[in-house]
């Protein structure tokens, strides 16, 4: 047991734990539902996870700075609608431009959040509850209750959802899932190896010290929300390709799925700790449960939410009790090691973050 603590950081132990929970969930549902783990289910799941995964990445980097972005669902809805409308009116827009447009629309909304929070010093919880409603109301007013439908959209965007890079035994590796993986890898590297990522951790870990260290904390928080908006825009694009029919309620509640995914994945809402890998595993677990419960006739829709809620509470409780203790043990074990040992480790192995 002690060996495990020395080899792996608490974050890695948690990720391992999440993977085993995911496997257990799959095994349980396989025994409950005949033909549970079929290709159709997995393929559909992968596009659904793609959207939540991107939003979880967005939420994670905002969480790291001790903030929330509750407006993500509205950003997804507004972007999906505005982009759909543009593609309806101008079907000739090339796909890449459409993606950039979506990210740009999202960034505008993210920038509004960021300005109010970082420069206006309004708490993010209040700000994004406000913008959650404002962006949604804008959509209601602007759309005039005219929905976007698949018939109005160019073919490529409707088909993109089903498009896969390659297929093995009917299990498709879909483009949207690939996009999520790409976003995950980029942000994993950004948080681990780029100065900006490290500063996100620093600000959430000790805001006063960050200011004393000479960071421009406002700009960093602003950037986190700007990026969150951009990723929300990207998710809006994915939402449009997945559903095609966009009404005023599009994307509602997605912000909570994103929060749930991040929290279950071990991203701390008091800032400073959490990983992209964890957040993506959290998305996987949440979405897997949601979709699996949907197929379980015995569980009513109302209980589905309750089960998800309990999962979040459980994750937070584990975080406080178990992981907190692991961290202390890990720190103690670590500090007992002599300097020479740590020197040797520095030369050799990879690092433990």
């Amino acid at each position, binding site marked *: 047991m002690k060996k495990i603590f020395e080899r792996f950081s608490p974050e890695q132990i948690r990720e391992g734990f999440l993977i085993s929970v995911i496997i257990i969930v799959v095994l349980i549902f396989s025994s409950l539902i005949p033909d549970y783990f079929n290709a159709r289910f997995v393929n559909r799941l992968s596009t659904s996870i793609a959207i939540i995964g991107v939003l979880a990445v967005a939420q994670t980097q905002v969480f790291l700075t001790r903030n929330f972005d509750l407006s993500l669902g509205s950003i997804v809805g507004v972007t999906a609608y505005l982009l759909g409308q543009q593609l309806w009116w101008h079907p000739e827009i090339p796909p890449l431009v459409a993606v950039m447009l979506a990210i740009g629309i999202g960034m505008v909304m993210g920038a509004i959040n960021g300005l109010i929070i970082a420069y206006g010093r309004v708490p993010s919880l209040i700000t994004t509850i406000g913008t959650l409603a404002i962006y949604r109301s804008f959509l209601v007013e602007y759309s005039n209750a005219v929905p976007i439908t698949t018939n109005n959209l160019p073919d490529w965007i409707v088909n993109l959802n089903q498009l896969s890079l390659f297929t093995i035994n009917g299990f498709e590796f879909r483009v949207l899932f690939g996009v999520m993986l790409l976003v995950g890898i980029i942000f994993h590297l950004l948080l681990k190896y780029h100065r900006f990522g490290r500063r996100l951790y620093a600000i959430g870990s000790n805001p006063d010290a960050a200011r004393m260290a000479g960071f421009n904390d406002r700009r960093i928080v602003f950037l986190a929300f700007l990026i969150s908006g951009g990723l929300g825009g990207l998710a809006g694009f994915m939402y449009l390709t997945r559903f095609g029919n966009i009404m005023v309620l599009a994307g509602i509640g997605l912000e909570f799925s994103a929060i749930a995914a991040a929290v279950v994945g071990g991203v701390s809402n008091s800032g400073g700790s959490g990983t992209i890998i964890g957040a993506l595993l959290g998305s996987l677990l949440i979405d897997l449960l949601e979709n699996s419960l949907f197929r379980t006739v015995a569980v009513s829709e109302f209980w589905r939410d309750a089960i998800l809620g309990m999962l979040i509470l459980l994750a937070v409780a584990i975080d406080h009790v178990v992981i907190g203790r692991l961290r202390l043990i890990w720190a103690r074990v670590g500090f007992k090691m002599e300097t020479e040992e*740590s020197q040797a480790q*520095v030369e050799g192995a990879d690092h433990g973050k």
Partner: protein
Amino acid sequence: MINTEEKRPILVLEDIFKSYNGAKALNGACFDLRKGEVHALVGENGAGKSTLIKIIMGVVQADSGKMILDGEEIKINNPQEAQNHGIAAIYQEPMVFPDLNVAENIFISHANRGAIMHWNQLYKDAADILSKLDVKLNVRMPARGLTLAAQQAVEIAKAISLNVRILIMDEPTSSLSAHEVDQLFKLVRSLRDRGVSILFIGHRLEEVLDLADRVTVFRDGCWISTKNKDEVKIEEVIHDMVGRDVDDFFVKEDHQRGQLLMSVKDLCRENAFQNIAFDVYRGEVLGFAGLIGSRRTDVGLALFGIAPANSGKVILKGKELTIRSPQQALREGIAYASEDRRQLGLIMPMSVSANITLPLLKQYQNSFGIVKRKDEAQTAISFRDRLEIHLQSIQDSVMRLSGGNQQKVMISKWLNTSPEILILDEPTRGVDVGAKAEVHRMINDLTARGIAVILISSDLPEVLAMSDRVLVMREGRQMGIFEKVDADQEKIMSAAMGQNNVVAEVA
């Protein structure tokens, strides 16, 4: 030893004025720092030391005055600019990032390491710096588990990594044990020998005089005196600080020891302390001495029921008690004033009067549960007068008071519960000389009324001077109880450090 080249001042501040909302913090203050010296700055709370640091670090800007670095007049607008000039500060509370590892903490402010993290290089550089400082830490561990002393070592490593020329240390020793202070001072001296100029702020004068090459005293935002190490005397420094002779510095009035009030027998708490046994009499001060980690505070917390003891007896006025909660302790007449004013003692944004009446709020409400503000105000005013709390209005929020006055508000709060035993945990930590004397006067006043005081303090001269008897603890064990006549600093220190086997002489 010091040649003329080194005597040249590297940083000079002239005629600095600064006021906050009309209240003058600095009133034409002057200060100079030479290359490769430790220059101590002392003064009571509110003398303007912190403001001076904030101006040097660019956290706030002076209203007027000159700052000259290396012969050139400069303006520093934010901490980043101070850093670019080679100036760094270490604060009372180390500013580490608990979630980042040691190496990252050391290099967090480096803008020139590029945008991409090279982890292996980072760990190697960090280990190099720490080994230069002779500090043993695993650079890959998150800073979360570090002791305060280790955190400070990390901060010093950070400063060195930035090649600072000027290092400001704001009361770095206030939470360290004697041994840790020695290590810190060794670090500071080695920095000085490398040509770093150090501005050191401290409250424990013996320590400061031991370390500093020069000592400057500030009072009321003005420069009062600067003296070289060889010509400075502690009495003069105190005189300069308070502007009057403090002849009542550590004065203990002797009172007749009253009857036995409380007996504690074989008190134990798992993983904290074992077999603590002592008697407390009315009108006496029982001192608790020991190093950091001696678990004195845990005994206090156990007696007040916050972290109850697992076994042992507490006999209060002939009645055997098992104290399980603070409510119960208060009912029995035991009060505990915490060492941590900010976290455990006071509710900072609330008014002075509301803080004082908080534990007894039930007595200050009418039958509808509405707080009787007149009664509350009356109580607050009576304590203001009795303890000489300096404040504009009892409706002021506590955070606007100075440290010493906050301490008095906290003590008022517990006195208002009319305790028979008052446990004071580090009542003078971070409090200036004048306020310290007033706290001591108050202790005298309490014991004269027959209250028993248990005084937990890391300030050894204070414990010795104020106590009738001193109980010494070391790592959760009771090393002995000394009568005032037998006790001196060496005896207590050697007991506290476990250097010889002092058998408990229970009086």
